[in-house]
């Protein structure tokens, strides 16, 4: 009975979704002329990013510069998620002592492979977040790639422990540098997270002023936070 109701409900939702979405023609140009005096939001971003921000990647310019405050909120949400998980899965000191990571002893093949792959994965992640203003990708993506490298190490070596002090320091410094760069923009440009785009030339590593620096900070922060989440989740004790 319940199943029938749910299927009817889903059919209704599906019908109205299809009805709405199919009124938007796929592949049609909705940006309009980017040279007009009153461009759309996307048209404004596409026509002004190169002159005003000196960044090749328009999405990076939107995420870090035009909607920089939004990204600061996003980083805060990620930080709160990490803190929330740590407090939800909090263990007392005496419980801590006999904690063992859940992973089974892994075979030699995985251990050797992880040791070879870990530096390469970390290098790829760092490449992605340093080149966030030139190529697809950026701080969040690069940080996630670095965290997958740590995940590989955590599941293949039982004794692999992340240093919590260093991780906390990296996280704090990365988060603080984001806010300090924002305050710097407040001083020099009268807007929070205002940019200094005169540095470097387009399509070189040194371009876009403060945008790459912010994205590098975001990359470190995301990598450390995701590694922390994985570390907490892997240290859960199985029920006896």
């Amino acid at each position, binding site marked *: 009975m319940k*199943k029938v109701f749910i299927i009817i409900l889903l059919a209704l939702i599906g019908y109205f*979704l299809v009805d709405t979405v*199919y009124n938007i023609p796929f592949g049609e140009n909705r940006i309009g002329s980017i040279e007009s005096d009153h461009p759309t939001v996307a048209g404004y971003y596409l026509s002004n990013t190169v002159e005003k921000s000196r960044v090749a*990647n*328009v999405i990076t310019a939107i995420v870090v510069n035009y909607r920089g405050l939004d990204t600061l909120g996003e980083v805060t949400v990620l930080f709160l998620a990490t803190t929330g*998980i740590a407090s939800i899965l909090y263990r007392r000191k005496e419980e801590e002592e006999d904690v063992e990571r859940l992973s089974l002893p892994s075979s030699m093949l995985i251990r050797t492979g992880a040791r070879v792959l870990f530096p390469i994965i970390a290098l790829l992640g760092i490449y992605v977040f340093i080149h966030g203003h030139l190529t697809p990708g950026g701080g969040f993506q690069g940080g996630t790639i670095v965290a997958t490298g740590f995940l590989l190490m955590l599941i293949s070596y039982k004794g692999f422990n992340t240093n919590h002090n260093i991780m906390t320091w990296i996280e704090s410094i990365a988060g603080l540098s984001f806010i300090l760069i924002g305050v710097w923009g407040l001083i020099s440009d009268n807007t929070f997270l205002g940019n200094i785009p005169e540095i470097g030339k387009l399509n070189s590593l040194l371009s876009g002023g403060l945008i790459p620096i912010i994205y590098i900070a975001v990359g470190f922060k995301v990598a450390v936070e995701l590694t922390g989440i994985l570390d907490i*989740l892997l240290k859960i004790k199985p029920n006896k």
Partner: protein
Amino acid sequence: MMQEEFNEIFVKYHEIITLGVYGTSIALMLIGLYAVLMKKNLVKIVIGLSIFDAGIHLLFVGIGYIKGGTAPIFSPGYENAANRMVDPVPQALVLTAIVIGFAVTSVALSLIIRLYKHHNTAKIDQIKSLKW
């Protein structure tokens, strides 16, 4: 030459491509909703939420697409291609949404772990203390 060929194919199969993109995203949303409404296991409900998320992201990026458009990156060789770039705003929004989705999923999973430790089950119909 390549561009003309692409346009020809795009116009010829426009309805199938539309169905492919919009239909897939709506189907993903419905599958996710079905899992959220029907499944008893909390982990499966969270998986359903993730599938729902994926459908919404696909729909956003699909709406932002422009026929024959390139990525909105002014890389060498594409400095003057601003007229045929896809909409960058939905892509930036989806980038935010993915990160928030990750945070929600991880917090939900940790709550499930706590519930499982407390009740020794992850099925919502067996957690009796929630009823009153």
